[in-house]
């Protein structure tokens, strides 16, 4: 169907449906939805990538803001861990958003496609998270990056502390830049950075990642709003779709095999990433 020939309301409805499906798959796959949303909507919908990235940022922002209170109350998210890393990430994310809106569409599409394909490969190859404990380094000790939480699944209280703090700042700077550039939440990268690099327990890494996205994306979202790259007709159906889909995904989580879900996520990312890459290179426009 030609985009110009279709009535306007088809597209917000289709966005709602796609965002709903992404919401389910993202929860089951343990990723933020933005990494699926931006390449899929950017590749297969008639909207310009500028507006898709703006909607993608708000899409990730809305989901993480909504989840934040529960994560904080259960202490799966640690504000003490989030605050310094999110500060580094939000400065970089702001810079990424400015750079992204200054680049040509083809360059952003190509870089987005290549990045999504690499992320899909990393997810496909990733193994179980780091489950050990670490001794704080000097910077981590100064920032008191430690805490504890009750794990209801294990029935134990877990004390944790992080290390490699300086490398963590560097990682969140790089992740924030990519997030702002492509309009992603970048949860796919936050969790390994917190868990594998800084040795935060996996559940604290997942919970804190959500809160970090809510801070980092707030910074980049303003650039898109200021530059006029946020269209409500894209953003609101997407937010509604992902919120409803995420709730259903959370209910399906216990009964869905993790391997199947991971394969679906990787396949969707490879397809969307390839589409973005080929579109950016002018091969499949």
């Amino acid at each position, binding site marked *: 169907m030609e985009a110009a020939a279709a009535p306007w309301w088809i597209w917000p409805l289709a966005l709602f449906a796609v965002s709903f499906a992404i919401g389910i798959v993202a929860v089951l796959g343990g990723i933020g939805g933005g990494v699926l949303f931006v390449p899929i909507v950017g590749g297969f919908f008639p909207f310009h990538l500028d507006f898709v990235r703006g909607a993608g940022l708000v899409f990730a922002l809305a989901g993480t*803001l909504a989840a934040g209170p529960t994560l904080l109350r259960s202490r799966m998210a640690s504000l*003490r861990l989030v605050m310094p890393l*999110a500060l580094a990430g939000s400065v970089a994310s702001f810079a990424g958003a400015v750079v992204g809106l200054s680049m040509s569409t083809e360059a952003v599409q190509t870089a987005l496609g290549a990045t999504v394909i690499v992320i899909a490969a990393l997810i496909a190859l990733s193994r179980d998270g780091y489950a050990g404990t670490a001794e704080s380094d000097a910077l981590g000790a100064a920032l008191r990056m430690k805490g504890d939480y009750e794990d209801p699944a294990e029935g134990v209280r877990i004390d944790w502390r992080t290390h490699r703090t300086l490398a963590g700042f560097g990682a969140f700077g790089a992740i924030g830049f990519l997030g702002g550039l492509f309009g992603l939440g970048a949860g796919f990268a936050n969790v390994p950075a917190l868990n594998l690099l800084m040795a935060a327990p996996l559940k604290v890494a997942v919970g804190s990642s959500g809160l970090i996205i809510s801070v980092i994306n707030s910074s980049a979202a*303003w650039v898109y709003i200021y530059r006029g790259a946020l269209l409500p007709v894209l953003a609101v159906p997407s937010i509604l779709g992902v919120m409803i889909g995420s709730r259903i995904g959370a209910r399906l989580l216990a009964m869905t095999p993790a391997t199947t879900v991971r394969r679906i996520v990787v396949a969707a990312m490879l397809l969307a990433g390839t589409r973005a890459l080929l579109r950016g290179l002018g091969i499949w426009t």
Partner: protein
Amino acid sequence: MDVTEHDAKVQSIYARWLDVSTRLSFAASLAAFVLYLSGALPAYVALRDLPRYWGLPVGEFLRQTGAPSGWYWFTHMGSGAEYLNLGCMALLGIVTLVCYARIVPTLVALGERLQAVLATAQIAVLLVAASGFFAGG
């Protein structure tokens, strides 16, 4: 009070403010979107005309529609339903700033000076981002 007790208190305050402000932002965005779709308020660019423009890069979109950018869209909130909608969605971008501003006095009172400095710096970054000073365009 030890570090764990400080964290529990600060996280509890942050969570409460995050919860309320996010709910208010969602409710406002949804209400504004219904007004936008229903045509109860006039749109700056009519919905039926939007497909002609939404495939354009943002700079070209603004040029062809004459739509405002920067903070000028704020002055169109009363006359363009999409800008009322944008204003409500922008509330989502303020939520984090509000929560950080709320915990700064608590952090100072608890003697968590380094955390208070970090929170203040984050507020400054968000204010600079919102101001558009370095957003270009």
